[in-house]
């Protein structure tokens, strides 16, 4: 490589920039003192405080549940949408559907959040349902925007799938639904898992939309964290951050290792994951 000094240095600086704050977070979660200035000794007391805080734990549990349900709903809807957009040739409203499902990807959170809240309020005054905002409304909102991401992931995998595999199944006597469950689904399964994980993470991480559509008593973890950090440094948040980073790091490393190993196993035509 010609410019062999520039690129590695620039890249390393970039990576350092990306990771330095995170690493400092992790380091100071073990700091005895509350301050981010002085290292006063190793301590896990903030972790203890974290686990003793009912508000945090309750919010965490709520967030996990909401994320799991929303991701699942988003997976079903997103997959249906992806199938419609890739496998069905032309149908009325195709461009409308494609537009509607990709808009949440670029629309600012505040607009999505506001619009959904106003919808729920209007629906409540017209039909009496949903009665007040809470877990249900958060799930509905999260499913909607997560669905957009699932569609993108599944759509790109479906587009790569060799059509002749599905045709071969039909030729051998399988009607379209059978083809989907016997052939399509097993082959795109890794994309479905990615889609679910993506929806789960986005839901878990969402602050703005949840703030708009949640109700009393249904505070999600990001909402609780936000109110804490608005006021300043909060070391138990550091502890939480470290835990989350640890779990995520493990997951991502595991996924990468699996993917690298899978690639060496060889691939037949029409099967890429």
């Amino acid at each position, binding site marked *: 490589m010609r410019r062999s000094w520039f690129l590695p240095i620039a890249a390393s600086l970039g990576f350092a920039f990306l990771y330095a704050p995170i690493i400092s977070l992790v380091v100071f979660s073990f700091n005895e003192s509350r301050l981010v200035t002085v290292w006063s000794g190793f301590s896990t007391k903030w972790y203890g405080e974290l686990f003793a805080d009912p508000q945090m734990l309750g919010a965490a549990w709520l967030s996990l549940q909401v994320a799991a349900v929303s991701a699942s709903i988003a997976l079903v809807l997103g997959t249906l949408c992806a199938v419609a957009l890739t496998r069905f040739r032309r149908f009325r409203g195709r461009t409308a559907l494609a537009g509607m499902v990709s808009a949440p990807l670029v629309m600012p959170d505040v607009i999505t959040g506001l619009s959904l809240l106003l919808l729920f309020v209007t629906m409540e005054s017209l039909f009496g349902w949903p009665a007040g905002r809470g877990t249900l409304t958060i799930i509905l909102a999260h499913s909607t925007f997560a669905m957009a991401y699932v569609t993108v992931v599944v759509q790109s995998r479906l587009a790569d799938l060799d059509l002749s595999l599905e045709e071969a199944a039909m*030729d051998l006597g399988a009607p379209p639904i059978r083809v989907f469950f016997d052939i399509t689904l097993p082959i795109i399964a890794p994309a479905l898992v990615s889609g679910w994980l993506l929806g789960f993470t986005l839901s878990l991480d969402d602050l703005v939309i949840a703030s708009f559509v949640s109700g009393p008593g249904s505070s999600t973890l990001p909402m609780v964290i936000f109110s804490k950090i608005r006021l300043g440094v909060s070391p138990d948040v550091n502890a939480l951050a470290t835990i989350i980073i640890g779990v995520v790091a493990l997951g991502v490393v595991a996924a990468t290792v699996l993917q690298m190993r899978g690639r060496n196993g060889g691939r*037949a035509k*029409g099967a890429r994951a």
Partner: protein
Amino acid sequence: MAKKPQIAAETRPWRDPSAKPFVKIRDVTKKFGDVQAVNHVSLDIYKGELFCLLGGSGSGKSTLLRMLAGFEAPTAGTIEIDGQDMTGVAPYNRPVNMMFQSYALFPHMSVKQNIAYGLKRDHLPKAEIGDRVAELLSLVKLQDYGKRRPHQLSGGQRQRVALARALAKRPKLLLLDEPLGALDKKLREETQFELVKIQETLGVTFIVVTHDQEEAMSLATRIGVMNQGEIAMIGEPTEVYEFPNSRFVAGFIGSVNMFEGVVTEDEADHVRIRSAEAGCDIFVDHGVDCAPDQVLWYAIRPEKITLHRERPEGDANITRGMVEDIAYLGDMSVFQIMLGSGKRIRVTKANSLRGDPDGIKWDEEVYVQWNGGSGSVLTV
């Protein structure tokens, strides 16, 4: 490879006016938007045939095949298989199976599961499925490969699994889309032989789509040459090769030398053509449907022409030229000869003598001759 006589090839049902065709394609047209992929094609295929649809890309052969399989619906026209009208019948309800060009083996299933898939769709009892799968594995000589996955097989093995899978349900009609395209030359020759043998043994009607004319010639009982969505010619391999009905067919199959000329004599038992391109008169030893002064073409194949140092006897079908290039291919030599008129022709000669010292060399002036009955007169 010498082709063994086949069942349909022996009985030749297409020559029998009272024979009932197994597949009736009637005036079928397929349009994709403005593009006409298949244009008013009518075709009869008989039971037990190994019929080849031969054509270049864009000829419509694959579209026609897909319509037979049910993946496309004709814009107009009908397709009948074994007396049943297939209009509106979905692919999973047809007595037809297809072997795909990419083999389309299900990557997440083993060889056995792939082959069994079609049988499972028919809800056959497990034991019966097992027996049938074993039967097919031994037919394609892959008995020990049942548990393997497609990515663990070689290209030739995958092809055999695809064939076994397509034959599992004992279809009345088997469609093959470029079955030998992905194989290397040696494997292709072996597999051609295997394919014909299997077809003979089982008596299944095969329709093969290919762009490789050698493949078509060696496999087929009859060939249907397609060009731009239409059938250019249907016939047995000998007919298509020796008696092409148009310049397109003559040029498409094998190589050919084409001379343009004007009819000078048009009689019931012979035709004489004056050709400036050939630089001589062309004498055809049979009557041709044409008129005096008509412009037409004469096609003569490279292997039908002989080269001489001295002028042979005769007043037609003899011309002069210079040897521009000789390509030595081992089993034969290809001579490129420039005639006096400036036209280049191809002449092939089998190398029946090893290292012939007296053989024709580069830059020699030679006389070129052919027999009056060896060429074809083409009016289109």
